[in-house]
């Protein structure tokens, strides 16, 4: 398939963009990456591609846009069936479990990390941290059940839940260095600790998950920009 047929509008710092890049890598799909600076004025091409939410990532395939990262990943899995192994599990029940955990990660767990970044009060921060650790505990259980003793949530291969959670590893490391503790540590969450190391060095993910120091620089720049316009 010609590279021009597939475009990804996104941002290098966005984990939601990163996970789509990982899905495209898993399927060895050639694509054109169009960097969007979503903190400045939304570009015309973005507003045209995603008039409803005006957010990235947006995958454009044969001129048709698909929005929302989880929906994009499932689309990639279903539109390219001959490229490598499938991203979602093949068993319908395992697929339902994978979708459940993806929804949990996006709707319940990751928002806690964002909330932590915004809060300043010590007590509030401590309360959020407790919830984050509780969630990590649930994800550890999920890992043990889904992986069935193998390396990744999907088993021998990197799959849906791996990339849905793994795309956050850069920002997780940023949170860890700012909070001075480990979210996926060897004592409390040994499964996830091992998984995290294996994931960031996997072909699908390395070169995609940004270096924590770059993310910190980016975070500082965004905070400064907000302060100067506020």
């Amino acid at each position, binding site marked *: 398939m010609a590279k021009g047929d597939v475009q990804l509008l996104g941002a290098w710092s966005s984990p939601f963009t990163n996970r789509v890049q990982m899905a495209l890598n898993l399927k060895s799909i050639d694509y054109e990456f169009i960097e969007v600076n979503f903190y400045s004025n939304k570009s015309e091409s973005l507003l045209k591609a995603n008039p409803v939410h005006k957010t990235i990532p947006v995958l454009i395939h044969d001129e048709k846009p698909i929005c929302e990262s989880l929906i994009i990943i499932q*689309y990639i899995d279903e539109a390219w069936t001959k490229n490598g192994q499938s991203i979602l599990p093949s068993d*319908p029940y395992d697929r339902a479990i994978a979708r*459940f955990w993806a929804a949990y990660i996006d709707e319940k767990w990751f928002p806690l990390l964002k909330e932590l970044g915004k809060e300043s009060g010590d007590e509030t921060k401590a309360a959020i941290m407790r919830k984050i650790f509780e969630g990590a505990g649930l994800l550890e259980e999920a890992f043990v059940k889904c992986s069935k003793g193998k390396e990744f949530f999907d088993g021998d291969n990197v799959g849906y839940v791996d990339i849905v959670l793994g795309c956050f590893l850069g920002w997780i490391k940023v949170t860890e260095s700012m909070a001075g503790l480990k979210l996926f540590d060897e004592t409390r969450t040994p499964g996830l600790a091992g998984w995290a190391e294996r994931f960031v060095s996997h072909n699908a993910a390395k070169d995609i998950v940004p270096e924590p120091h770059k993310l910190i620089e980016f975070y500082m720049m965004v905070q400064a920009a907000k302060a100067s316009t506020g």
Partner: protein
Amino acid sequence: MGEELKLFRTWSSRYALRVVHALKIKDLEYETIFEDIKNKSTSLLEYNPIHKKVPVLVHNGKPICESLVILEYIDEIWKQSPLLPQDPYEKAMARFWAKFGDDKVMPSIWSVFISQRKDQEEAIAQAAGNLKFLEEQLTGKKFFGGETIGYLDIAFGWVANLISILEEIADLKLVDAEIFPLLSAWMNNFSDHPVINECWPPRDKMVEKFKAMREPYVEKVA
């Protein structure tokens, strides 16, 4: 093969109603367990320990949670009367709009319901903007699924069932047939379908329930 299907639901949950509609469209037999939200059963807490919510579908002892996840599961296991389109792009669109319904449309309608005066005017404008997207999706179609009811129609079931109840209580019209002709027609077509309306919770109980939910937000006249 003996399939064991159980659905944990409440009498009013619009999310559980999605699963009921899907099971009825597929003509599947199942056992219903009605939950009291204030006194959840041990079974529900065991089957859905993370969210402790309905609906939960239990198939041969294995639980599936989250209504939209359940719909996809049902569609993948039982191939009769398909709910989702076959084409990957059309499928992606159905999933996108279902999520839009839950993440944006529903909260905006709720804002209209619980707000007053200027806040309500702003909320109405927001909700109308969201409903316009739905109106556009119905261009040239009887149902969101085309000629027959599908995944997106079921996902939007609460629009057909709940909005008129909220309109009645708050004494306003959100889905005006002149402004939203296609959406209004869809609401009638969807509601008229026997598989749909025979499952709906009693309207008077729903009015009572939502009136009570609105109470704390309504300004008391001195």
